[in-house]
């Protein structure tokens, strides 16, 4: 039984998102605050044993606000009518909750948090626990469908209003009465929302494959279909060197208790232990010190009573529970290393964390129930581990889940964990606008490229390299040379560009021929990507006319241009026009192709553009050599002026500097000339990226 697909609607940041789960491990990655933990919380509250009450925070803010604005008038009208409590409540309920009798009156409900589940089984599998929820007779279908919904009912909402009536009423009357407090309306709306939220009740239905034809089932019966366990991110680990918590030891013994051998061994133990205690005549000592003294008094009293009290004796009984408790108390997990014994806490948190997870898995394994959906969630298993350890552990976990046939959901924000799994196992939670998040399902991404063998092998390779960075990033910059990266890193520390530093920017170096390969990923993830490239027209063109009619060797430019203008390669002039018309914003508006444009003094590379900007000349304009030398020493820049030329242009300088581009960029940065030399095309690109 496999939990195949989950759709989450109207829950916190998730307005509507669907993702599939793999048969073994599904990795849910995402930056902080992308909704990973909320998502796990939701699953735990539905499938787990811990009852988490529905909270106001679960209602998406945009929906909550729109609803509050809508119902506010209903509340204020009902209160201002001045009817008695009961009537006011029933009026409000009638207007807000749709009537069961007359479904035409729709009521005003917040679109409810709902989760749709699809569970698959294979032909040979035993489905007795799920048979009650089959909704087809189709021999080719192997799925069960469930919807879990959080909504108030007329009764529960009435109940909540009754509870909160006085508070609501008093907030309302504050609005009516003149007073100094501000945002009184907001306070009432807030209370209304709280009341609504507290009346929300869970319900569960099984349905057909289009999630229609709903039939009720008890939420508790739905829960029974899952063997669900979760290791929270905030798990207890022994980091205090005092070693008092001993979580590992406890987990180990807990695990051993499930073993048959342990049971048979421990059976005889009470008697074996009792014997030496008896031999020591401990009872005698106890008796001597206490009972004998007491007995005298008892004797005296009992004589007066008719002497029927009997003698006091001591009895010893050692139960199996007592033995387990004793063993728990006296066992310490320690590490043995090259002959030294080290305590539980000595190997660092990362190690303890790993062992803790393995022990939990081991004990879960024993409870696997083939009739149910077995699902084991680990939140951030990478905590406290260094990158290499993360990678090894991730690979181990994956093997473990596969072997034991456990379905696992693992959340992470580590690129190492991402790298260690396949693309098809990856799901990424990412914000989609300020109030919406989505889970991006890479199994479908992988499927979409599988028809193209070149692209397929490209992504397999790329996955190991820069891919995981893109997954977590807010923005992506694809660049060709190291100098571009140096420039932007520096820029991010300066003035108007500091907001770049607040974003997680993935820098990915690409060869010009390959930039187009990223199109699928950019469009899939909807991540804003700035692609930096050079105009790179033939160097020989050295006047305006020949430059404008020149063509470029840059594969990125040629291929991207052909997206909007299929056919022969563009001339520089075509590209200038293309750039000006903003047609260089591509891929549903998620990619910006930046290259030297009309305002960059006919430059064809980054260095040319920087130098022409600094010295206000066109790239091909020749000037005496001495002039260049003076400028170089005045500004403290490092570049090579061709020795054999009397007069030269910036193009010549850049060609001769081709081996020292990095030194050049260092000099720009160290002399604080970055802003002064920033080419327009990069400026525009970054402005687009930051928006």
């Amino acid at each position: 039984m496999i939990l195949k697909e989950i759709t989450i609607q109207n829950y916190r940041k998730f307005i509507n998102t669907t993702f599939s789960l793999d048969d073994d491990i599904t990795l849910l990655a995402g930056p902080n605050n992308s909704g990973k933990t909320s998502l796990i919380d939701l699953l735990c509250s539905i499938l787990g044993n811990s009852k988490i009450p529905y909270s106001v925070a679960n209602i998406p803010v945009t929906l909550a606000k729109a609803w509050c604005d809508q119902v506010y008038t209903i509340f204020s009208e009902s209160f201002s009518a001045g009817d008695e409590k009961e009537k006011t409540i029933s009026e409000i309920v009638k207007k807000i909750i749709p009537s069961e009798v007359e479904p035409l009156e729709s009521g005003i409900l917040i679109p409810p948090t709902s989760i749709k589940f699809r569970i698959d089984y294979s032909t040979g599998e035993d489905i007795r626990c799920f048979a009650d929820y089959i909704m087809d007779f189709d021999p080719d279908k192997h799925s069960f469908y469930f919807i879990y919904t959080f909504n108030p009912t007329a009764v529960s909402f009435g109940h909540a209003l009754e509870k909160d009536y006085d508070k609501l009423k008093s907030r309302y009357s504050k609005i009516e009465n003149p007073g100094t407090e501000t945002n009184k309306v907001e306070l009432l709306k807030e209370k209304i929302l709280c009341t609504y939220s507290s009346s929300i009740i869970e319900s569960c239905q099984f349905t057909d494959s289009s999630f229609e034809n709903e039939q009720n089932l008890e939420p508790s019966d739905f829960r029974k279909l899952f063997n669900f366990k979760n290791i929270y991110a905030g798990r207890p680990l022994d980091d205090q060197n005092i070693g008092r918590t001993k979580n590992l030891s406890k987990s180990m013994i807990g695990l051993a208790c499930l073993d048959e051998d342990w049971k048979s061994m421990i059976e005889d133990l009470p008697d074996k232990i009792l014997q030496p205690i008896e031999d020591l005549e401990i009872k005698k000592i106890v008796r001597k010190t206490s009972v004998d003294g007491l007995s005298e008094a008892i004797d005296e009293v009992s004589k007066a009573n008719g002497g029927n009290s009997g003698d006091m004796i001591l009895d010893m009984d050692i139960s199996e529970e007592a033995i387990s408790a004793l063993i728990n108390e006296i066992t310490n997990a320690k590490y043995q290393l090259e002959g030294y014994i080290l305590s539980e806490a000595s190997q660092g948190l990362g190690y303890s964390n790993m062992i803790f997870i393995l022990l939990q898995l081991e004990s879960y394994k024993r409870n696997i129930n083939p009739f149910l959906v077995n699902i084991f969630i680990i939140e951030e298993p990478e905590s406290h581990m260094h990158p290499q350890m993360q990678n090894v552990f991730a690979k181990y976990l994956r093997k473990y889940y596969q072997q034991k046939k456990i379905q696992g959901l693992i959340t992470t924000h580590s690129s190492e964990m991402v790298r260690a799994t396949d693309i098809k196992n990856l799901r990424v939670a990412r914000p989609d606008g300020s109030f919406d998040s989505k889970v991006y399902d890479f199994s479908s991404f992988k499927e979409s490229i599988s028809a193209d063998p070149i692209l397929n092998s490209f992504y397999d390779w790329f996955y190991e390299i820069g891919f995981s960075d893109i997954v977590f990033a807010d923005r992506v910059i694809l660049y060709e040379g190291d100098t571009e990266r140096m420039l932007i890193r520096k820029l991010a520390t300066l003035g108007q560009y500091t907001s770049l530093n607040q974003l997680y920017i993935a820098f990915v170096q690409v060869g010009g021929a390959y930039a187009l390969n990223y199109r699928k990923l950019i469009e899939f993830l909807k991540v804003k990507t700035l692609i930096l490239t050079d105009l790179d027209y033939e160097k020989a063109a050295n006047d305006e006319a020949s430059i404008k009619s020149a063509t470029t060797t840059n594969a990125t430019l040629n291929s991207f241009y052909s997206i909007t203008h299929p056919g022969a390669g563009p001339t520089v002039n075509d590209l200038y026009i293309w750039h000006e018309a903003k047609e260089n914003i591509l891929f549903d508006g998620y990619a910006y192709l930046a290259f030297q444009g009309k305002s960059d003094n006919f430059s064809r590379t980054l260095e040319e553009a920087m130098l022409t900007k600094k010295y206000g000349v066109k790239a091909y304009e020749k000037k005496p050599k001495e002039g260049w030398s003076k400028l170089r020493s005045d500004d403290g820049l490092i570049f090579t002026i061709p020795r054999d030329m009397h007069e030269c242009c910036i193009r010549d300088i850049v060609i001769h500097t081709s081996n020292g581009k990095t030194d050049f960029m260092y000099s720009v940065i160290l002399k604080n000339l970055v802003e002064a030399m920033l080419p327009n095309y990069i400026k525009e690109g970054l402005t687009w990226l930051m928006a």
Partner: protein
Amino acid sequence: MANGIAENMFLVNAPAGSGKTTLIKKMIVEHRIHNPNENILCITYTNRAADELKKGLGTDKLHISTIHSFLNSFVGIYFSHRRILDLYFELYGDAIQKRIANEAADPKIITSNEKYATKFGTLSFEVVKSNIKAISYNESQYNSLYYGGLSHDDLLYFSEQVFESYPVIRKRLSQKYQIIFLDEYQDSSASVMRIFYKAVLGTNSKLYFLGDKMQQIYKNYDGTFELELQFLRHDISLSTNHRSIPAIVNILNNIYNDPSYKQEPSPVNTTIDPDHLPRVLICPNIPERLESEKGLYEKALLLFLPNQKKFDTIGAGNLYRQVKNMDKYSFVSQTDAVDVLLDDTEENPDSLFKLLFLINRISTYFELNNLGSIIQLFKANSKIFNKDICMVSNHTDKIRLKELLNIIINTYCEFNASYAIDSILDSLLQTNVVKEDYISLIKGDEEYSPVLSVDISEFRAIVDFLKTQNVSTQHGVKGESHDTVFFIAEDSSSTPIVHMYRFFELWSSVDFSLGELEQFYYEYLGLIKEVINSLEFKLSTITKDQHDKNIKYLTDKSRDILDHYKDHEIFNKLCSQPYQKYLLNQNATNAKACFKESVPYGTLSAYRLFYVGCSRARRNLTIFIDNDKITSFEGKFKEKLARTGFVVE
């Protein structure tokens, strides 16, 4: 108790349309807020009502169920206790021994006795006694005496005996539940009311009896709890009618004729205009007039009394005729053909119709491809369905079940060919979906054979009718309401006995309320029972011999009764004649007409039906009266109708 009033027990009278269910829900919600740690028990009359009530309330510290399932779980835990077994044999020992002896040589009992003997070696009281390890509720209409199985009625009776004999169990009830609701008390047996009354009396728990005597439709209650009812607190009253317009509410108040039950129309309903004022049509030919009125009000709910007419209208006339002819559903029996044919819940007391309604639900689910709900039905009715066949534990079972169900549903739903009900049973046997025992019990019972040869389409017609329900009998489901109601006044001399025109005649000349008529009926019933008990036979079967032997007793009793009710208007109008006739001419024939409850009962039930029928109407109410049947009291009747608020045409 102050002034004999039980402080913690309430009688909440809830006339039609007064919002009783809403009140219970409200009381539960309020009680929970103020006493979150207290347990609430709510007893409803049907599972359907229980489900209705459960909606939106959750199950936290709240137990809602029918009286049968409640008692079965509450008292059932003691059913294997030695002392309870002893009590069982004390109460049922005679009946068991009588059945073993079978002096009348009833062939059915002979077969059943032989079956027992083959199974257990011998049949004797001692063997039966030692074989019964626990008693149980058998969910059927008959006791299974040899197996300790309690029927519907006997679960209630036996539970009362258990509560009586073991006060500790009674105490457990009041300690567990701090607040108890008994819904539709008027249809509960006196045993049930006594169980709760005695358990709660003098404790801190609260007990609410909710209902409306006007809406009594079952004959479960025998009038032996009247005194206690009077001593309950009456301070909660539902005085708003949320259903009907003021003109109809006014009529209802006049018919009820009891100021303490007076209802006010709801403000919303005062603003609604009817198409016509409530009216009575006195017709020379009812069917003709009905046709023309139906043309004007297409959606009117037609309330018929005689069931045959209703089932003819539905298209299931033949089926009704055959079921009604069965011994177990004729005349005096507790259940009648209507209950059996219209009860689509799992409480249907008849094996065949319970099965057919199940097949119908399966067919509905089948159309929706909802196999899951079918499987749940199978599991919930494990006494009917064959577990081995109906169990789904892998994918191939799903495919297999589809094929089996196809066979059954094709027989059930085939519109072109006309299959008899029997062929459904055959398809169930063929597919082995239903247990062979279950079907052979039906097929083996000769009583069923005319029913089994009826076309299945007649049953489907009933199902369709239950979906739309714009034809109803006056006994139909409670709580149902309609914009426009046509009430067709008719008499019925078979079950249910209704003397509508006798009621009209009495009502035209005597001023009485429900309480007064009821009080007379229960008292008169008591007197009759006394006579029958002392005679040890019913007057309806009296022979000349029996009469001559008892002539003095009968004469004395007739004089006593006439004397006792000398100035009693109701008695004189309804019942005095046969006694006077008998005293003039004492013979067996004249004696047969005396000491019968049917006349006052038929009048009383006509009174209730007339009220309930009128209360169904939200806006438009029309009563159809047969001109020929009122000639002797036409003038007074018209006056009375006008006083009540009708326009007479």
